[in-house]
């Protein structure tokens, strides 16, 4: 081999070489434009759910067509967006203002779903973390119960329980809360277990810290972000679940307006086509879709930011 010349870079002569950074610093969470639009859509619906009754032109159970003609039951033209009344999206099969009912329905649909998701989260996280930190027996008992609940397809559990007890808003909240508490339990337990075996929790245990400290200071802060993102997805599932039950006529009962039931009630109008009464059925369906798709897009944006690892966990 030939002689190799030594090449030395310019030497600053310093004897301190800083440790090189492990990785470039992480950037702050920023939503893409899709995420921003979605956030605006969700905000709009939340606003309508909160203040809808004061904004909607009519009450959800008000028959606007009755005053105009008096015999709304057999006049098919009432399915049309009638110029004689100020119904932007037309009237439904009973002659009620569709726009008003959608605005009122936002309150029912979002309210029930949100309450149910909160319930599911409260129960699921409490028990899930308990299962993760408690002994084997507690974990086994809780996990088996959850397995049993999850052995039913969601909608089946809904059908069976509604068959037994009839449908009411508190029951719907409890039912959806129970069904989804089972899946929240699984996620919270998995997260809790992942965090439990981390060295910093070991360190706390070695220090002699009590369970309460470990749960509130070590586990929950680290589980908060993934759980918050999952809350969005879970909310979407609950909205779909409640709407499906309502759509089957087993959810929210008339005359309370609710997006799922509105689609069902006005299905007949579909047959008249877009220029006929289809709007009354299509628009509440679109309302659901805008809300759920928007939530999904926000979650997608956030988990893409977190390197997709969240998304993987939540499939």
């Amino acid at each position, binding site marked *: 081999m030939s002689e190799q010349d030594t090449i030395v870079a310019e030497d600053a002569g310093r004897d301190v070489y800083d440790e090189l950074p492990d990785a470039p610093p992480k950037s702050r969470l920023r939503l893409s434009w899709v995420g921003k639009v979605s956030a605006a859509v969700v905000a709009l619906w939340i606003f309508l759910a909160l203040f809808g009754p004061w904004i909607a032109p009519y009450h959800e159970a008000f028959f606007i067509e009755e005053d105009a003609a008096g015999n709304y039951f057999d006049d098919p033209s009432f399915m049309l967006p009638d110029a004689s009344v100020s119904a932007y999206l037309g009237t439904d099969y009973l002659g009620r203002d569709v726009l008003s009912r959608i605005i009122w329905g936002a309150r029912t649909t979002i309210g029930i779903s949100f309450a149910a998701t909160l319930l599911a989260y409260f129960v699921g996280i409490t028990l899930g973390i308990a299962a993760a930190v408690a002994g084997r027996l507690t974990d086994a008992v809780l996990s088996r119960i959850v397995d049993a609940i999850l052995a039913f397809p969601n909608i089946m559990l809904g*059908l*069976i329980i509604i068959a037994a007890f009839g449908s009411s808003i508190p029951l719907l909240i409890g039912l959806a809360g129970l069904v989804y508490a089972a899946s929240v339990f699984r996620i919270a337990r998995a997260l809790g277990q992942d965090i439990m075996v981390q060295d910093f929790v070991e360190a706390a245990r070695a220090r002699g810290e009590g369970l309460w400290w470990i749960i509130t200071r070590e586990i929950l802060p680290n589980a908060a972000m993934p759980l918050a993102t999952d809350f969005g997805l879970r909310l979407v599932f609950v909205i779909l679940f409640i709407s499906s039950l309502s759509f089957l006529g087993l959810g929210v009962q008339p005359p309370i307006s609710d997006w799922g039931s509105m*689609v*069902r009630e006005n299905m007949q109008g579909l047959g008249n*086509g877009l220029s006929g009464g289809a709007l009354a059925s*299509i628009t509440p*369906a679109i309302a659901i*879709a805008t809300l759920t798709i928007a939530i*999904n897009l926000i979650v997608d944006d956030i988990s893409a930011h977190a390197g997709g690892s969240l998304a993987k966990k939540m499939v």
Partner: protein
Amino acid sequence: MMWNMVLRRIGVGIVLLWVVSVLIFALTQILPGDAAQIRLGQQATPESLAALRKDLGLDKPWYIQYVTWIGNLITGDLGISNAGGATISSLIGNRIGNTVFMTAIVTLIAVPLSVVLGLLAAMYPGRLLDRIITSGTLGLIAVPDFFVAIFLILFLAVQLGLVPAVSYLSGTESFWKSIYVLALPIGTLVIVVSAQMIRMTRAGILNVMSSPYIEMAILKGVPRKRIILRHALFNAIGPIVNVIALNLAYLVSGVVVIETIFAYPGLAKLMVDGVQTRDIPLVQACGMIFCSTYVVLILIADIASIMSNPRLRHPK
């Protein structure tokens, strides 16, 4: 080792089936008023009630009733419907074939479609095709099943008049005629189920694609097609089979909504009608059928993922 795990998993499945049956049976015990009361109504005399109770075995303790119920269930005697008094097995017998027919066709279309689309998306991540597939499916998984259904009805059946909006089968149609009649419900279910499957197939393959052995294959100069088909797919088969089984389980739920929309005379429609009339024995029977199918599908999914693990398949 592997067979032990599979056997264990089957054991767990059987236990789950048992738990499901107990819970469904428990319904009759929780509710006020038993089957005899419901059947005869409020005006029934105590004598006729007692007679019917004895007839139905309702005077026996609950565990005897459970054993009888489960025994009857297994032998196909599903009891008598509260409404009308027809035997449930005759009601179900008429319908179950319809449901099986429709779901089978959906499965045959959706599974290959999803695997191919999921693969295509994973092969070119970030490209146009992938973007279309991912955003399309993201939208679809976020909307209710009936959303897809009413839009298909509105555009394909009402506006364009291509296919019928109501799926009524008289039982005498030819195969192709049946498919034509069922085009909308089948289409809806395929769309709904595939969206999930495509996403999960894509995620499964991409997950494998980010592993170091794929990077190694790239550095060995292995062509992309071979990397996907030999290196990635081989490792993703387990997860994909899992995804398929899981999603066929979702199909169980989807069927409920779709049969109702299209007034399709299947098992799920029967069950929903039963719920509306609070016909408990009917709901129990249908519920058992759906739930056991679900449990079995989940079981298959689990076994598939165990069997596809090379560490378990080829022990040391």
